[in-house]
């Protein structure tokens, strides 16, 4: 089991020793980085392509139909067919569009999506770059995506795009705050920003999600992650039947493929980070570490696609109300109970923090209850009375 666990590390090491025979020493550092980056650069887009296929098949099964299964056995060549289609489509730019902004937006929006892959620990000892600020890197990059969506919307010179873009920016900056706040308890307990250290602080089976602040934090982080990626039920910016296609209306061909790719890579990286930070990363009994990691990540991706198949879209005021009136106070209370949990001793800390969390939830539910209007009484409609 030890070998199966470390198979990729052993592979890379053997590749390095084989290359070290005929390459000078100073280039071995480059080679090591190149192998990691090459693995990510191959893995990222391929994952995204097959995630699109997985989503279509999953949502199809929920809707009583097969997904795509004509192109290749089980539809496995469908993403390649999609890629070829998008490459051969004509690249249409509206006449009065801002060419610089229109061109730049899809190019730059893929960059954070790819960069986040470098801090995700895929297994024991399998992280591309062990940054000491790994989690902050992720939060910072996912917050830069906001501007480029707006640049895309503005550069298209289309009222629907602009509307979608403004809604997108409003949604993304509102959901960033609970997202950052829900990660802070993890930082308190783990003591470091580095993703590797966070995973190693959840040894064995005491993952952070099995603690009172962990459950709330996990739910908040996951929901805000879904909102950051603009997926259903928060996909108002690209609401596919409401405002044509939101901020990527005027994009066709490869530019649209870049937006799509950025969205799916973001889906994968958010699921991976949630799995790392709350669900214990690659920790788990007797299976190899990377198997655990991928199982957790794909379980979260399954839940995201399940949301997509089930839920209708949230209206924009419901969306913002959810973030500011429910998730933000809950994240602050979560921070409080995480502090309490670290200070007290077991079992008192669990009981006290669960009580405070429960009280906060009850108060927030009561405060956010939907306003049911009074039954209307008409003055003249009851003619026969």
């Amino acid at each position, binding site marked *: 089991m030890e070998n199966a666990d470390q198979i990729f590390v052993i592979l890379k090491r053997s590749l390095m020793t084989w290359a070290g025979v005929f390459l000078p020493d100073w280039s071995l550092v480059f080679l090591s980085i190149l192998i990691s980056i090459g693995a990510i650069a191959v893995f990222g887009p391929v994952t995204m392509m097959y995630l699109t296929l997985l989503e279509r098949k999953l949502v199809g*099964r929920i809707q*009583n*139909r*097969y997904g795509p299964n004509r192109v290749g056995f089980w539809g496995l060549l469908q993403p390649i067919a999609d890629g070829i289609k998008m490459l051969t489509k004509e690249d249409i730019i509206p006449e009065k569009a801002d060419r610089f902004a229109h061109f730049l937006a899809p190019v730059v929006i893929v960059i954070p999506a790819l960069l986040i892959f470098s801090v995700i620990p895929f297994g024991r000892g399998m992280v591309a770059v062990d940054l000491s600020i790994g989690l902050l890197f992720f939060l910072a990059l996912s917050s830069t995506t906001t501007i480029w969506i707006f640049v895309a919307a503005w550069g298209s010179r289309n009222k629907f795009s602009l509307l979608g873009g403004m809604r997108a920016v409003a949604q993304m900056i509102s959901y960033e705050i609970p997202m950052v706040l829900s990660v802070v308890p993890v930082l308190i307990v783990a003591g470091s920003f580095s993703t590797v250290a966070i995973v190693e602080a959840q040894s064995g089976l005491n993952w952070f999600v099995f603690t009172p602040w962990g459950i709330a934090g996990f739910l908040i982080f996951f929901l805000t992650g879904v909102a950051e990626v603009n997926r259903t039920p928060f996909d108002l910016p690209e609401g596919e039947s409401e405002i044509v296609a939101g901020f990527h209306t005027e994009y066709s061909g490869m530019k649209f493929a870049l937006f799509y790719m950025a969205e799916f890579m973001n889906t994968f990286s958010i699921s991976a980070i949630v799995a790392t930070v709350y669900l214990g990363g690659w920790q788990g009994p007797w299976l190899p570490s990377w198997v655990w990691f991928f199982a957790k990540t794909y379980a979260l991706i399954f839940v995201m696609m399940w*949301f997509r198949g*089930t*839920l209708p879209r949230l209206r924009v005021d419901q969306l913002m109300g959810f973030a500011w009136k429910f998730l933000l106070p809950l994240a602050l209370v979560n921070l409080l109970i995480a502090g309490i949990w670290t200070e007290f001793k077991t079992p008192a800390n669990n009981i006290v923090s669960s009580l405070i969390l429960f009280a906060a939830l009850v108060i927030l*539910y009561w405060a956010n209850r939907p306003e049911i209007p009074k039954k209307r009484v008409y003055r003249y409609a009851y003619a026969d009375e």
Partner: protein
Amino acid sequence: MIFGLGVLKGMMVTLKNFVLSYFTKERLTTVQYPEERIPEKERFRNFPFLIYDEKPEDLRCVSCDICAKECPPKCITIVRDSDEQGKPLKRPKVFDIDFSICMNCGICEEVCPFDAIFMDHEFELAEYGRFEDLNYHKDDLLKSNEYFAKIRPQDAARIDAKLREKAKLKETEIRGHNT
């Protein structure tokens, strides 16, 4: 009651749908066309065809031209056959139906007094040439009575009974004449 309960119930419904679609047939109602096909209903009509009884030479059509006159978009072209002296025969020499014009209304079937033209169930009739390939001539339109009985059994049975009645009536009339 509480907020998230409706969402959770909805998600359980879709999960049940997803899981059971692997096991039961009514949760996955897709028909994998063209490997599997659902047979068409008997009254489905698409494109007309001419009927012959035994051999393609004795087709029931006598080129009375009623269907060509009643056809709303005028897609039928009929030219009556004539023998060597120029006397007209009760047979069409040319019977063209233009598929790009035909609107599959079935009026030609309803007005034919000789039960010679009926609506077929064929719909996979795509062609490459827009004008020359979609103009069906008499030989393409001839199909046998057995084929008709296979695709529309009730109508075929009714028409066959009627024709047998007529033949029996003619027999008795001829016998009545002779005696």
